[in-house]
């Protein structure tokens, strides 16, 4: 899958390496900024960081 993607990126080898790095960075940033906060917010994961008394 990733091999197929890499072969279908345009340009010479160094461009494709650079493009891959940019795509990976974009994916990581999207996860960090949007996906993970949403997962933590939607609370189907048990919180292990609740620091309040009385469950507020």
């Amino acid at each position, binding site marked *: 899958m*990733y091999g197929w993607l890499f072969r279908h990126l345009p340009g010479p080898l160094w461009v494709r390496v650079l493009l891959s790095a940019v795509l990976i960075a974009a994916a990581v940033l999207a996860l960090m900024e949007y996906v993970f906060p949403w997962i933590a917010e939607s609370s189907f994961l048990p919180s292990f*960081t*609740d620091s309040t008394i009385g469950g507020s």
Partner: protein
Amino acid sequence: MAIQVAGELLITLGLVLALFVAWQLWWTNLESNQAQQEAIHTLFDDFDLPTDPPEPASAPQDYGDPVVLPPSDREGETFGVVYIPRFGADYSAPVTTGVGTAVLDRLGLGHYPATAMPGAVGNFAVAGHRQTHGKALDPIHTLVPGDHIYVQTADGYYDYVYRNTQIVMPDRVDVLAAVPTEPAAVPSERFLTLTSCNPRFGSAERIIAYAVMDSWQPLNAGPPPAIAAAVAANASGGR
């Protein structure tokens, strides 16, 4: 082919899960620390700090009964800064009204709205994360009786002395009482109560740290020597 794709997807899933751990234990701290710095700087812009801090008094002075902020009911309003030298000479964290995730996940310490304001007779109770989101109270178990916990507001510096720690179940709301754990008692002292989760990477219990106010001084008297450097750092960062 299908097996190769499935394998690559599983490897990706593993990496994403590892990344989630990195996000929770590391990234959230970066975001929260930055938000806390901004909150402190915004608050300091409103503080009427003496431009020329007076020499620290050689002997403790008595400034009478502390001036106390009016109760804040505006959720999300930052009204004070807490300094705990035991946590580090430059440790400071903003205190914001409310203990919902909107406050605690971004702004360090949250003030239980129904409890007293800093310096007031009763219980000034504050919650903070022990891990993730800035982990404002991570070293709470390192406090030693006699340690000072300073609270700075627009009115002055309140000097609380740490007394003891208690580990309780999460439903023990009586630790927030005006006299902690004595809901029926009428308070005559000025308490400070910190609540955080326990154990360090879990939330099965709560760790509670109690302190009692020892003295206070107005802003124009300058900061107590133990936190002068941290206050100066906050003040210069705000310009």
